[in-house]
Structures are given as structure tokens and as C-alpha cells.
């Protein structure tokens, strides 16, 4: 591909202990078939989570693009380039995780996330909104790292890793709120504009 020595940092810099390996033989509910209502709601939940993660990826992309556009076509300093590339890598990885969940939705292997589903959805929605507006890029990178951790945990379908990841994400969101005291009108956590691509 390109000759330029792109410093592609693999995914998130401060990667949490995200289980990259996937349990080969999923200890799923293969024994007892879920009732039609259960099975459908489970698949829908998994798809919904994948949708939210994709939306986060869209947010990351929009954020990176708005940072780039601030330079109005001129030179972008090396440090900023590195940060942008790190976020781009994270975005791409997040999309792969989301695709994994779409495959899971088809397979319905991931057991229902149950009560934490709603909280999870809310958190990821919150994260998508925050990514757009945070002022410190380092906060952004940490937040994205937590999101990746959550996505990885979700794919395992196991409660403990998911709860841990949710906790870490919530913590990071609180930190960001501290660094970004709400000014007038920042509490509009409305729909994130999709990434522009001609």
C-alpha cells in the first residue's frame, strides 16, 4: 500500500484486559431451546447493542473529521495526526466488534444480557454523544478504549466481564463529565450525525 511510515498504533493505546480470544465451543444454551419469545428478544437485543456500537464508531469518525476540518485544509501537526490515526484504528476495530455481534444475532448464541441491557444501551448512547463534544483528545482515546473493552466482553456473552466493562465505561464517562462541565446547551445528547462519506 502506502510507502509512508504510518505509525499505526494497534487499536486503543491503553487497552484493557479485553479477551481477544473467542471461546471456540460456545457454552451456549444449546441444551434447552429458548422459547420463541425469548429467542427473538435475545437476538433483537444483541442486534440493538451492535447498532449502538456502530453508532459509536460513527461518532468517533465524525469527531476525527471535525478535528481535521478545523485546520481548513492546511498542515495538521504530527501529534494530532497520530491521535487521529489511533482513533481511526479504534473505530475500525469497533466496527469489527459490531459485525461480530451482528453475526451473533443471527446465531443467537449470546445469552440474554437481561437487566443490564437497558443500562448498557443508555451508556453507549451517552458515550456516542460525549465523543462528539469532549475537549481533551486523551479523554476521547480512553473512552474509546473502554468501548472496545465493552464490545469484546459483550461478544463473550458472559456476565462478569460485561459487568466489569460496563463499570469501567461508566467510570470513564464520569471522568469526562468532570473535565467538561456542562455549558449552556451541551446536554443535548440527541442523535449523532452519521459520518459523511460522499
Amino acid at each position, binding site marked *: 500500500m502506502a510507502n509512508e511510515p504510518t505509525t499505526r498504533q494497534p487499536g486503543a493505546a491503553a487497552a484493557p484486559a479485553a479477551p481477544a480470544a473467542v471461546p471456540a465451543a460456545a457454552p451456549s444454551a444449546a441444551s434447552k431451546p429458548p422459547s420463541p419469545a425469548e429467542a427473538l428478544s435475545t437476538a433483537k437485543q444483541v442486534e440493538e447493542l451492535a447498532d449502538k456500537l456502530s453508532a459509536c*464508531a460513527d461518532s468517533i469518525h465524525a469527531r476525527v473529521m471535525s478535528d481535521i476540518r478545523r485546520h481548513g485544509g492546511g498542515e495538521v501537526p504530527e501529534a494530532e495526526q497520530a491521535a487521529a490515526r489511533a482513533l481511526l484504528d479504534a473505530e475500525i476495530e469497533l466496527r469489527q466488534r459490531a459485525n461480530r455481534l451482528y453475526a451473533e444475532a*443471527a446465531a443467537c448464541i449470546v445469552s440474554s444480557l437481561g437487566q443490564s441491557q437497558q443500562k448498557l444501551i443508555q451508556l453507549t448512547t451517552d458515550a456516542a454523544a460525549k465523543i462528539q463534544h469532549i475537549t481533551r483528545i486523551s479523554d476521547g482515546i480512553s473512552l474509546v478504549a473502554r468501548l472496545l473493552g465493552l464490545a469484546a466482553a459483550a461478544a463473550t456473552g458472559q456476565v462478569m466481564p460485561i459487568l466489569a466493562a460496563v463499570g469501567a465505561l461508566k467510570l470513564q464517562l464520569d471522568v469526562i463529565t468532570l473535565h467538561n462541565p456542562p455549558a449552556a446547551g451541551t446536554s443535548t445528547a440527541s442523535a449523532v450525525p452519521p459520518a459523511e462519506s*460522499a
Partner: protein
Amino acid sequence: MNLRRFQSLSVLLTLAAGLLLGGCANTTANGPVSLYEVRQFADASARIGGYGELSRRYRDTYQREQPYLSPAADRIARENDARRRAVYDDFVSIQKSLVLYMQTLSLLAGEGRYDLTPQLDDLGTGLKANAESGLQQRHIAAYTGLTRLLTRVIASGYQNRSVATMVRDGDADVQALLEAMITLTRLYAKTNDNEKKTVLGIFDVEIPFSTKNQDRMLVTLAKVHYLNKATEYKLVDKRYDLALQGLTKVSLGHQRMRENLNNLTGDEMRKLLAGYGRDLVALRDALSD
């Protein structure tokens, strides 16, 4: 003497009436005209476009996106690839069973009686129903149910079968399988969306960063590539939508038939089915462009 003749005459008449009525109710030899729209609809449903091609596209996602992935993303993508490939056959089998069902329905609604046993054999022994098969239990059950129905009908040479009984017996399984196909098509579309954003995303970022003079050729190549890819994805996006529309129409048409078993030949039903049939043909044409 008179009584006996009268009796034998009435027996004859009853026999004749029975044959006539029996012929009509069987809808096999007589009355194909009134089930023409059913046949049209079934034919169009059997030839529905999009799902097969989009299933293949879903299976081959990794091939297309691989050049654009970082090492970390590539690791995850490889796992995804293995999963997609493992379940592809099952996704295709569902469609095969539905196609065969529609072909059988079409035969029942018409005059021909050619042998569909080869297609039945092609369905195989069943889905790879294990934890990784990629289908929910109820879809597997629906597939099994439908293939059993088809085996009974086809192997018996369509005896004692009418369109009405076929629709009545097959509707639940048909609807479950169609729902599976609709869900899968939707998941295909979302996966494709992530693929598109992965492929195009890199250029969004790297082109603005390549401002030196020696980057000019590279940037030009990148911009041309970007445009080609963007156009490609725009065209593909439409196909998911068309495929979903088609599947929905098949589901609706069959549902209406189920609700109107005793009135399949009524004017309203015929108009409705004719409309669905035309829509399906139009969708198929749009997809074959």
C-alpha cells in the same frame, strides 16, 4: 320396472355429479383458470431475487475489507469470517426450501405435474443444527417441518392435495422461514454498512494528512479509488432494500391466502395476488440490472 330404471338413473346421476364436483374440488384437472393468479404469485415468489446474492456477499465480506484493516482489527475480522462461512450453507438452505415450496404450490395451482424429486433430494438431510449453525431453534424447526410437508406432497405425486390444504399446512413454517430471511437480510445490510465505512474511512483521514508535494500522485490515486468505492457501495445499498421488499411481499401474499382459504378464487383475492405477483416481477427486474 319403472322404479328400477329410475333408481339406476339416479345412481348414474349421483355418480356423474360426484365426479364433476370431485374434479372441481381437487382443482387438479379442471379449473386452472381460476387459480392462475395463485400460480403467478407462486412462480414469482420462487424466483425472488437478491437474497442469494446478498448471502454470498455477506459470506465474502472479509475478502473485500481485508486490505483496509489494521492488525488488531484483522484478528477480529478473521474470526468473523470463519463464523460467516460456517453458517452460509444453512442460510442458503432456507431459501432452497422456500423455493421448492413455491414451486410445488405453483404446480398444484396449475395443470403440470412434473417431478420435483431432484430438487427435494437437493435439500439434503437438514440444516447443520448445532450451536454454531447460525439459526434459532424455531427456524430450524420450521425448516424441518416444511421439508417434511414437501416430502409428503411430492413423494405422493400430489395426490389428495389442493392449493388450499397446502397453504393451510405450510403457512406457519413458511412465515417463520421468511422472517428468518428478512432478519438475515437486515443483518447483511448492517454488516455491509460497517464494511463501507471501514473502507472509505481511511481516506477521509489520510488524504487531508498527505499534503506534501511528493504525495500528489498518491493522493490522486486515493481520490479516484475513493470515488469508485463510494459509487459501488451506493449501488449495493439499494439491493438490500429491494430484497427486503420482495421478501415482505411474499410473506404478505401467503398470509392473505391463509386467511382466505375458502375464497382463493374470489375477485378480490385474485386481484390482490396478481398485484403481488407483478410487484415481485418488477423487483426482480430491478435487481437484475
